[in-house]
């Protein structure tokens, strides 16, 4: 019986769709060890567990849904190839988020170069946004696009995804204090936009 099959018998080890983020560190360690031995099913279980959080990290950095999906795919592939270098006693999520953030930053850099050669209309729209027509949403989206990528990532990771400053620091490879000040400046900018739109409407 493979380690993954043994792990399956332990309730709560193989994540179901309903509780993808809920995980027990010991179970995850078993999955990581099994994946490191080459059990593809174990790695698939890790993908299932972490894909939502990985998407959130990527989406905080890139400007649209499609790029976030690309970043997630690239990151998981990179993680699979680098799995032998991962120390199982570390937090797999934190390690993966760093990889996702790097993949997303790469895509952002490539897009910046590509967009410099293209017409401005080619900037993609965010993922299905039914209220995009609302003035406030549109202006806020514009303001988000003008924020430096790191500040945008920090505010989204903190306010939308609930990351702590220390987690943001690890994920983006910046000091915790920098994450705090980025959050402060990003909030100030966006609050200003929000205030001016409200006074106009």
């Amino acid at each position, binding site marked *: 019986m493979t380690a993954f099959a043994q792990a399956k018998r332990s309730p709560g080890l193989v994540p179901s769709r309903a509780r993808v983020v809920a995980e027990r560190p010991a179970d995850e360690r078993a999955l990581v060890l099994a994946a490191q031995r080459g059990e593809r099913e174990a790695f698939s279980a890790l993908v299932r567990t972490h894909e939502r959080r990985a998407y959130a990290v990527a989406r905080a950095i890139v400007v649209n849904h499609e790029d976030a999906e690309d970043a997630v*795919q690239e990151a998981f592939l990179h993680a699979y190839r680098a799995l032998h270098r991962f120390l199982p006693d570390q937090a797999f999520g934190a390690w993966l988020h760093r990889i996702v953030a790097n993949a997303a930053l790469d895509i952002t850099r490539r897009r910046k170069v590509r967009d410099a050669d293209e017409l401005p209309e080619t900037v993609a729209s965010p993922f299905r946004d039914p209220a995009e027509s609302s003035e406030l949403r549109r202006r806020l989206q514009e303001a988000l696009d003008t924020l430096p990528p790191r500040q945008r990532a920090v505010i989204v990771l903190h306010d939308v995804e609930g990351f702590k400053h220390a987690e943001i620091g690890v994920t983006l490879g910046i000091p915790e204090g920098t994450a705090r000040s980025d959050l402060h400046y990003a*909030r100030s900018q966006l609050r200003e936009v*929000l205030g001016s739109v409200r006074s106009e409407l």
Partner: protein
Amino acid sequence: MTQEYRGPELVRDDDLTRELRSIYAAPSDASWWDALEQRINARIDAAVIADEWWTVPERWMRAGLIAAGLAVIVAGAMIVRSQVQVTRMAYQTVVDPASMDLPEVARGAAMTEQQARLRILTGR
């Protein structure tokens, strides 16, 4: 006692947070996540196959290196042998011109007997 500076005071804005959450809402459709998982796994499978295709097993690599080495030795020996033969023929031509089989050399290289003699003498 000095207090560690923790950066600017962070003021939460619930309206802003609500708007941000609606802009950055992740897909809620479970089938989309299933599809993403499948795409990730398919991409990894494709990469693994590609990696395996390029990775030559160690014993094959060793056998290949030995075969290539042997081929180089054989080719080198043949070159040396042909050069020795040409030198010997040139020497014989000088010592005993009658022993030279010029018509045969000329026929093999598609040239006149005179050209064949010159070739043997110059070793080319």
